[in-house]
Structure formats: structure tokens, C-alpha cells
């Protein structure tokens, strides 16, 4: 990389960005105005609101008879007692006739005084959706407390107990002692969120313009023909976008820093913890700490922009980035979380937490350094990933391949990623809900709605490929012989799986044996065996084969070796069952099924083996509870050996 070229690209991009009002308005104007606007308007609004609360009159009703309560209520000038003449005051509260009401049990006062063991309940009715009603409730609650105190006094007087001096508690606030100073509560609460927003706002247009704009204007092509390498281009663009983001952040911080002096001049007593107090060492340190965040956000934005063919498409991509960028906020702001080894290593989150820490006066330079380094490493990784994207042919020249050609090249990894994510998420959330609510029917629905439908819709409506070309329902190589051989393998797969799980349960404490797993499945409903075989045995055998050995296997890139295909399909199939204990046995079964599909060229042997494997397991769990006897293992394995030899022979003869 040549620094001079990076400088040239940087300067040119910066000049372009500064001349773009879409960048300049959020970067400069909004940033400067935001601080003074918020620090001057909020305390004012809050003070007005507080004044209103103090001055307002609240209409309350007293239901029940108590001279003491009546006296206490009338002593409060802000309470207006309304006689609603009803025993159902909740309606009047709901309608807003009164703000709140106290409901006393009959003869409460005399009961409490005469019987020293008596305890009574007082209701306060209010409408939580209305602010005024909520405040009236708080006032009534303090009156109820005063009522309690008065009653207590009377009881003590009756028992002839006198307290000379009431006990009292003194609270002392401990302040964090930081050499850099501590920002006021108002800033601690607001600034992190605002700065994250500004850092994100500062990148949208520059990032889109720098990458997607270059493509849309057709200026990338001549640029790639200069001496500037793709890494240099990307690095320079990253620096520009980081600059605009960081300038937005710095200007916003300066706005808040300056507004503390402004606020002190205009409103010397900013009310209710809304005073802006931003000591300059704290300000400087916080400013420095935002730098890695801006670079991280810029790198992510450029990465996203690299995927977009048009600016409009890019804008669509930015909404999730904004959401993602704002996700660490609640974690950092609400929890008592400080920078430590784990958080310092997570990009985004580390910067937000570090910033919050600095505002609150917790400064740990070691972790700040770790956070800084991890952010830079993350950015370098993104640069490495994203700079080749600038040269991707389909993005660069807007090449759209026809479905037939893509099928010929057979590279659907991106689409498969989405399919697998969808199915796995549906499996995780949907399947649980279905099985918990509808038990055995839920299992059947899971297979149809979560496994089969997404696979078919994906091929037919998204990829627009002919289903038969993907699913391979043709006659298998070796014909009937290969199907029968596949069926013979079923007892062996069960024997091996249960052996595997048994061995695993010896190593992994808490892992369940296959018998227990099946028993759990059978508990799902007291359904007849035939229904169980259909739902646990046959249906998954058909649906899962369509998804895994049908769609996924067929759409893996053609250049993958057979071994790689078998490993990928097996791993996905193992992961799909979402159980650590079952990962290896199901994964191995998936790999075997993938082998059958590749060697026979048809889905039928896989379906037969899968259906029989599941069905035999159901039958076994029903009739042979607990661990099966040894002879069954031996017989199963023997049948498997015959099966696999038969299958190899059948498919081999067909090949020759």
C-alpha cells in the first residue's frame, strides 16, 4: 500500500463528502445544534412540568367513614375532595370525574383503636394510564402513611408509651472520585445514545456514496484501472467515512461541552438533575474513546455498501445496521456494566460501555487499550473481507445470471445459508410451540410446515428451479436392489446410534440414552402405534430427505468433492436436531444418507432407510423398553453389513 495514493483518495473523497449537503447537514449542523437544544429545552420542560404537578389541584374522593382521614385530606390544599355519592368509585376514576379515591373498610378508625391486634386494608383507586391520576395516587399514599402514623401514636398513647425523640436516618452520597471528573447524571443518561445515533448518521451517505455511488455512476471501472490497489481504495474510503462519523461525534460533544456554560448563564439552577456538567478532562477522554467506535461503524457500513448495487438498495441495508448499532445501548446504559476482559473484546459494545464508564468516572486504561485494539483488529478484518467485494463482477457490473445458468454453475451457497437459517430458526421457535401445544399433531405439523414447505417454496418460488431437477425422484442406480439394501441398513443404523449414545453417556454426564430419548417422544401422546410410526417414523423420513438430501445436497456447489458434500450435509443434519447429545449420531446418519443419495443418484434409498430407521426405533422403544439385548445388536449389525455390501454391489454393477 502506498500512503501517498491513500492520501490522494482520502482528500478527493473528503472534498466530495463536504460538497454533499446530505452529508454536511447531519455532520455539522445537526451535531452543533443538538447539545444546546437539548440541554436548554429539557430542563425547562421538566421544570414547567414539575411546577404544573405542584400547582395542580387533584380531585379525590373518600369512600368510607373516618374523621381522621377526612381531616388529613382537608389539610392538603392541592386536594379537592369530591363527594361522588357512590360505592363504586372505580368507574368515576376511569371516566376521569375524580383523579383517585381512598376506599376505607367500615368503622376502620374505631376498630384500629379499640383492638390493638386488628389490621385493616385501605384501597387507593387510580388510573395508571393517566399521569395526573398517578400523581394523585402518590399523594394519597403519603396521606395513608400519615394516617398510619397517627393511629400508631394513638395506640402508643393508649399503652402509655412515649418516645422523646424519633429515630432518624441520615443518608450520605458517595461520589466516584476520578481524576478526570464525572459528567453530570443528565449527560450520563443521554449522551451515549445521542452519540451512537450521530456516529451512525454521520456514515450513511458518505459510505453509500463512496462505494455504491462509485458503482452507480460507473466511476469504479476507470478507478480500478489506475495504479491504486483495491486495498488502498478501501482503506482511504474507510478513513473518509470514519472522519465524517467522528466529526459528527466531536461536534456533538463540543455542543454539549459548550452548552454547560450556556446553561449556567441562562438557567443558573437547572432543575431535577438536568444540569450539564462536563469537566474538560472527562470530555477529552470521552472524545478519544469514540474514535474506535466510529472506525468500527464506518468499516461495517462500507462492508454493507459493498453488497449493494444501487444507493436505494444500500439504504435498505442500513436500517438493520442502525438497529444493530443501537442494540448495545440498553446493555451499557441500564445495567451496572463496566469494561472488563469479556466486554473489552466485543466491538461496538466495548466502545459504548467504555464511553459510559468514562462519563461515570470509572477509568481503566488497560481495558480501554484492549477495547481500542480489539476494535482496530475487527476493522482490519472487515477491510480484508470487504476490499475484494469492490471487484466482485456481479456487483461491479450489475450482472444478473439466469436461473438456468446459475443452476449449471450450481453455486447457491448464499441462498442455502438463508434457507438453513430460516429452517433452524423455525425449528427453534416454531417447532417448540407446535409440539408443546399440539403434541403428536405438533410433530407432524413441524415436519410439514418447518421442513417440507420451506424447502419446496425455496426451490419453486425463490430460485425458480424445476423441482424434479433438484429433488431427484428418478429410479435409483441399481434399481430395486439398492432400495432393498438401503432397507437392510436400518437395523444397523439403530444399533450403531444407540451404541454411540450409550458410549457418549459414559463420557458426557447428563447425556441421555437413546431409550430415554425415545421414551420422551412416546410420552407426547397416548397415540396408537400406527400413528406414532406415521408421525415419528415415516413423515420425517420423507420431509427431512426432501430438505437435506434433496434440496441442500443438490444445491451445494458442483466443484465440491463428494467427501465435502457428505461432511456438509451430515453436519447440517446433525445440527438440525438441536441437541448436543444427538449431534454425532444424527450427523453420521445424515452423512450415510448423503452417501446413498450421491451413489444411487436418487432420493428413494435415502427415504426408505430414514423411514425404517425412525419407525424401527419407535417399535423398539414400545416393545423393548430399556436397553435392548445383545443379540439384537449383533443381528442389526449383520443386517447392516449385508445391506452396505449389497448396496455397493448393486450400484457398482449399474455403473459398469
Amino acid at each position, binding site marked *: 500500500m502506498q500512503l501517498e495514493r491513500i492520501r490522494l483518495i482520502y482528500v*478527493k473523497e473528503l472534498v466530495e463528502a463536504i460538497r*454533499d449537503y446530505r452529508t454536511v447537514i447531519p455532520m455539522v449542523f445537526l451535531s452543533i445544534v443538538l447539545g444546546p437544544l437539548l440541554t436548554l429545552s429539557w430542563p425547562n420542560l421538566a421544570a414547567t412540568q414539575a411546577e404544573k404537578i405542584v400547582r395542580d389541584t387533584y380531585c379525590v374522593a373518600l369512600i368510607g367513614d373516618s374523621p381522621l382521614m377526612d381531616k388529613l385530606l382537608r389539610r392538603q390544599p392541592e386536594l379537592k375532595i369530591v363527594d361522588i355519592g357512590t360505592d363504586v368509585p372505580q368507574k368515576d376514576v376511569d371516566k376521569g370525574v375524580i383523579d383517585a379515591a381512598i376506599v376505607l373498610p367500615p368503622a376502620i378508625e374505631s376498630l384500629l383503636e379499640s383492638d390493638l391486634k386488628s389490621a385493616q386494608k385501605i384501597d387507593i383507586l387510580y388510573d395508571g394510564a393517566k399521569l395526573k391520576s398517578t400523581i394523585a395516587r402518590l399523594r394519597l399514599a403519603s396521606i395513608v402513611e400519615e394516617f398510619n402514623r397517627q393511629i400508631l401514636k394513638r395506640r402508643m398513647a393508649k399503652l402509655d408509651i412515649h418516645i422523646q425523640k424519633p429515630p432518624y436516618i441520615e443518608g450520605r452520597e458517595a461520589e466516584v472520585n476520578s481524576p478526570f471528573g464525572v459528567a453530570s447524571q443528565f449527560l450520563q443518561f443521554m449522551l451515549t445514545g445521542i452519540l451512537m445515533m450521530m456516529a451512525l448518521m454521520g456514515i450513511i451517505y458518505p459510505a453509500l456514496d463512496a462505494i455504491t455511488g462509485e458503482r452507480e455512476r*460507473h*466511476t469504479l471501472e*476507470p478507478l*480500478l*484501472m*489506475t*495504479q491504486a490497489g483495491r486495498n488502498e481504495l478501501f482503506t482511504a474510503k474507510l478513513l473518509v467515512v470514519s472522519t465524517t462519523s467522528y466529526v459528527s461525534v466531536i461536534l456533538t460533544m463540543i455542543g454539549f461541552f459548550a452548552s454547560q456554560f450556556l446553561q449556567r448563564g441562562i438557567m443558573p439552577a437547572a432543575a431535577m438533575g438536568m444540569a450539564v456538567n462536563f469537566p474538560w478532562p472527562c470530555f477529552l477522554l470521552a472524545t478519544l474513546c469514540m474514535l474506535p467506535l466510529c472506525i468500527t461503524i464506518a468499516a461495517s457500513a462500507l462492508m454493507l455498501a459493498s453488497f449493494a448495487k444501487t444507493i436505494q438498495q444500500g439504504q435498505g441495508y442500513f436500517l438493520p445496521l442502525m438497529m444493530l448499532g443501537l442494540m448495545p445501548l440498553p446493555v451499557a446504559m441500564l445495567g451496572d456494566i463496566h469494561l472488563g476482559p469479556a466486554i473489552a473484546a466485543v466491538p461496538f459494545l466495548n466502545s459504548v460501555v467504555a464511553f459510559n464508564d468514562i462519563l461515570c468516572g470509572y477509568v481503566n486504561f488497560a481495558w480501554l487499550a484492549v477495547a481500542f485494539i480489539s476494535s482496530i483488529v475487527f476493522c482490519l478484518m472487515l477491510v480484508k473481507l470487504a476490499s475484494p467485494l469492490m471487484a466482485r463482477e456481479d456487483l461491479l457490473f450489475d450482472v444478473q445470471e439466469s436461473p438456468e445458468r446459475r443452476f449449471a454453475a450450481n453455486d447457491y451457497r448464499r441462498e442455502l445459508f438463508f434457507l438453513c437459517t430460516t429452517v433452524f430458526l423455525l425449528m427453534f421457535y416454531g417447532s417448540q410451540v407446535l409440539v408443546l401445544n399440539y403434541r403428536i399433531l405438533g410433530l407432524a405439523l413441524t415436519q410439514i410446515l418447518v421442513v417440507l414447505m420451506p424447502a419446496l417454496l425455496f426451490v419453486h418460488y425463490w430460485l425458480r428451479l424445476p423441482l424434479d431437477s433438484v429433488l431427484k425422484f428418478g429410479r435409483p442406480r441399481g434399481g430395486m436392489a439398492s432400495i432393498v439394501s438401503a432397507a437392510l441398513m436400518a437395523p444397523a443404523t439403530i444399533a450403531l446410534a444407540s451404541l454411540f449414545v450409550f458410549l457418549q453417556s459414559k463420557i458426557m454426564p447428563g447425556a441421555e440414552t437413546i431409550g430415554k430419548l425415545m421414551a420422551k417422544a412416546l410420552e407426547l401422546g397416548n397415540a396408537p402405534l400406527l400413528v406414532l410410526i406415521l408421525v415419528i417414523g415415516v413423515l420425517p423420513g420423507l420431509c427431512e430427505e426432501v430438505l437435506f438430501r434433496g434440496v441442500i445436497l443438490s444445491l451445494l456447489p458442483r466443484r465440491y468433492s463428494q467427501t465435502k458434500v457428505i461432511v456438509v450435509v451430515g453436519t447440517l443434519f446433525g445440527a438440525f436436531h438441536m441437541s448436543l447429545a444427538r449431534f454425532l449420531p444424527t450427523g453420521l446418519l445424515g452423512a450415510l444418507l448423503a452417501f446413498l443419495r450421491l451413489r444411487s443418484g436418487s432420493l428413494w434409498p435415502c427415504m426408505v432407510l430414514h423411514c425404517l430407521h425412525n419407525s424401527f426405533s419407535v417399535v423398539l422403544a414400545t416393545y423393548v423398553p430399556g436397553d435392548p439385548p445383545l443379540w439384537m445388536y449383533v443381528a442389526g449389525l449383520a443386517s447392516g453389513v449385508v445391506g452396505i455390501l449389497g448396496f455397493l454391489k448393486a450400484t457398482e454393477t449399474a455403473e459398469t
Partner: protein
Amino acid sequence: MACRDISFTVQDGEIFGLLGPNGAGKTTTLRIIATILRATTGNAKLDDIDIFSEPDKARSLMGFLSSNTGLYDRLTPAEILHYFGRLCGMSEAEVKARSLQLAQSLDFEKYLHARCAGLSQGTRQKVSIARAIVHNPRLMILDEPSTGLDVLATQSMHDFILQAKAQGKAILLSTHSMDEAEKLCDRIGVINDGKLLAVGTIDELKATTGKASLEAAFVNLVRN
């Protein structure tokens, strides 16, 4: 578009045209030579420089222009020429002198410091040409240079190409216009479906196909 078995040479002071229908592989071939796309196999040489193993060296000797290349609207022609000139390895003084010279010869001197957003289509085309040749390349790659231009702009584009030829530049251009090919090209390569069907002068192509016009010869080659 995938291209296979395409082989030809372009001499200094020669205009070589790649003639083919839409989607024939002309642009892909030019992009591979311009080092923007990577070829899976094969090689291309500029003098003794292998463009695949020494792309940087090769690029400094090539200029690329297509009809749809854009300009940076918020920059001025002077800034654009400076940017590309410097990125192509020219010094500050060289770029300055060359920009002025190009602006004078292509007649956009008075717009040299105006933002591109406000320039007319014709002037933008001139700035694009200047941008492509700011580093004075020996080989000029022109991808359908006159597509979408009006008669006058096409005329000045043709003048520019012929002028470059007179200066001894090697010019490789793609076109689907028979008129343009006949008017400009010394030799033509007919390309279709990613394959080079024939190479020769216009007369040679007519002779091999036994047709009287270039158009008829072209149709004959592509159809067969």
C-alpha cells in the same frame, strides 16, 4: 459472458475493432485486457509486460473509456484529471500541464474549474476522454465509445480516435455498429458467443465470406 480462445494482436498506430452483437463477449474481453476482470487461463502482453502478472505496470500504459463511464458530479474537471493523473503515477507538475493541454485540445478549457454536475453531455464526454488519456497511455481501450452519443458528439469522438491513431497509439475498440467499424478500424475481429470467429481487414473478411459488404460478411460469420 464467458469467453474462450480469443487471440489477436494490436499494433502501434492501428485501430483494431471487436465487432459483435450484444452479449457476444466484447466488453468482457476488453475488461480482461484492462485487468479489471481476471481470466481463468491465457495471457496477454503489452510489449514485454505480461498484464496478468504485472497488472500495475500494464495499467500505466493503458487508458480505458466506455460510453457510460461517469464523472464525479461534485468535482471539477481539473480536480478529476488531477485525481486520475496522480493515481496513475504522474507528478503534480505533469498533471497540471497535461490537464491544461487536454482541456485546450478537447476544447473545454473554460469549464476546467466548473463542477461537473452542471456540464452538458458533450462536455462531459470530452472530460471523460481527457480522464482516460491523462497519463498518455500507449494502448487505448474503448468500449463502445459512441453508444448513446448524438451525431456531433459521435463525430468528435471519431475525430479523437483518428487523432490518437495518427499519434501512433494502439487502439482497441469494441462496437456493434458496422458504420463505425468501417470508418475507423484497420482490422476487425468478429466475435460471437464468447468466441472469436474471424480476424482480418475489412477486405479480407469480405473475401473469406464472399460477401460484398461488411454487414453481409458479419451476418454470414455470426449465423454460421
